């Protein structure tokens, strides 16, 4: 499952970040920000227009991601 498909209040465990090409800066930055295998993430809120951006908690930090960015993060569903 991709992070962009998670409903509000949902979450999961990161499996990895998929790079869209050999030099995907966004994917590298996502990993630097803590989106690495084994981290728990949860979707806290959506922006007011078109459910974008997505507010995600990873670790103790909160990041706003656009849908295309969130789509790079692959998750394993977590039973609540």
């Amino acid at each position, binding site marked *: 499952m991709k992070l962009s498909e998670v409903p509000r209040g949902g979450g999961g465990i990161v499996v990895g970040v998929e790079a869209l090409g050999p030099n995907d800066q966004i994917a590298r*930055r996502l990993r630097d*920000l803590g989106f690495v295998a084994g981290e728990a993430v949860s979707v806290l*809120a959506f922006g*007011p*227009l078109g459910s974008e*951006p997505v507010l995600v908690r990873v670790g*103790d930090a*909160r*990041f706003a991601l*656009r849908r295309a960015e969130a789509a790079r993060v692959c998750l394993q569903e977590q039973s609540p």
Partner: protein
Amino acid sequence: MTAAAATIASQIALVGNPNCGKTALFNTLTGSRQKVANYAGVTVERKEGRFTTDSGRLVRVLDLPGAYSFDATSPDEQITRDVCKGHHPEEPKPDLLVCVADATNLRLHLRFVLEVRQLGQPMLLALNMMDAAARRGIRIDVARLAAELGIPVVETVAVRRHGADALRAAIDGTPPPSPAVVPDLDLHAETRRLLRAAVQLPMQHAELEDAIDRVVLHPVFGLAILGAVMFLIFQAVFAWAAPLQDALAAGTASVGAWLAAALPDGPLQSLLTDGVFAGVGTVLEFLPQILLLFVFILTLEESGYLPRAAFLLDRLMFAAGLSGRSFIPLLSSFACAIPGIMATRSIQDPRDRIATILVAPLMTCSARLPVYTLLIGAFVPRREVAGLFNLQGLVLFGLYAAGIASALLVATIMKRWRRDRGEHALLLELPSYRWPHPRDLLIGLWERAAIFLRRVTTIILALTVLLWFLSSFPAAPAGAGGPAIDYSFAGRIGHWMEPLFAPIGFNWQICIALIPGIAAREVAVSSLATVYALAAGSDDAAISQLSGIVASEWSLATGLSLLVWYIYAPMCLSTFAVIRRETNGWKHVAIAAIYLFALAYAASLLTYQLTVWLT
């Protein structure tokens, strides 16, 4: 030289993630002994301060821009990386790196601490916001963490008076040895290991923050709160600053009058009263407004609200070819485009950054206010509309709205033209909410005030004097009819420009005022004051009467046309200068100048011809 070198014992650099409280710590360490400048070639702020340790050593502290990683994605991060690695051409390699980490956000910040440690340079870790961590039930075994990391660790609370004493003592002590570099270290795995070994995290996340965010980021309530905050800011800037402005105006006017009486009649008296006091005095009146606006912006920034606003507006701004991050620079541009354009350095995507820089001058900066206030006072009747609003206020609001709408439109058009259609990143951190510290607000405010005052006392003063000279010389020949300014250089330039601007309704006096108005917008009003004061040949035709002169001498169409002109007015020279520095070239300066001039001319033409046709 040797004496100075001997007393400066060490050069340290503060490095850390954004939102780690690094700047507050910097303020605690150095107090007001700070120097803010720019790194050459880029508009990244270079903040240096100094303090003396208990043993009497002088320490220079560099506050490096926040970075998430040395895999730099913005000019800020490049500077931080280069200075830490000792690759920066102008910055000596720091003797000691003080890595600052937010104790409440260690999972993110420790990763960067490890990345810094991999440089193998003497460093220590300042665990900041230990008070907040304790409140949240985060327990950190500092001794264990230091042992595991292999570097000294001190606790700090940057917002408390003695919160940095431990750090001071550590800097004063014997410098720590360089840490060992672990080859092929998996930073994330190591971070997790350190957290397991030395940190006890509570099971619950910060519930209060989540509750606040549920309201503040709510699709309906969130936008309503944002609207209310914006409304409050504008209300405050325009209503609360008025008494202070009036006091400043009265003060400069009385000093000017006193000088006029004390000095003998002649060129010197004319220069001081018609030139310096009429010109610089008018501009100085805007200081309270600019400062008040910055009180709000700094408070919102320090409290953590601004990124939330960016979150709410991102989709809308993205549709227009900008980014949620553009909100902060654009909001600052309401005070002045210069700090606004400088604030674009927090936008990582270069295309978003350029787009924001190019439309920032369309935000109604406070320098336009004198022009707006003058013209609205002269041409718009003070009338109630729908029993609630004032017509003058509505027109002012309309001018602001026109600026914002034009900015969105221009950005959308630029987005269409852009060839590079690669993805734009947002990746915006929403930090924890914090109470802004008065000291940090004051230091920030002082920096802004200094920038403004430097402008007033240099470029604006010089231009005012130049304009006074142009409009005073050569003097009218003896026995000549008509106002003296007709014979001056300025009069000639104005007459020469008139044909070009006649279609949009500008007379030669306005044309004269436009020239210094390009240098600094607010000078346009003082120039008109100078031009008309000199044309009237009397010293007491003060600025306060300018409104009356303008109302009687200009047609409604001319007044409205000039109002509209100043929505787009080719901006002040300082803005051009900052765009050049920021984009490292003249290309975007030319683009901005041409499109703004074209828009201003077209919009004024439309306004003038329509008004003439209707009235």
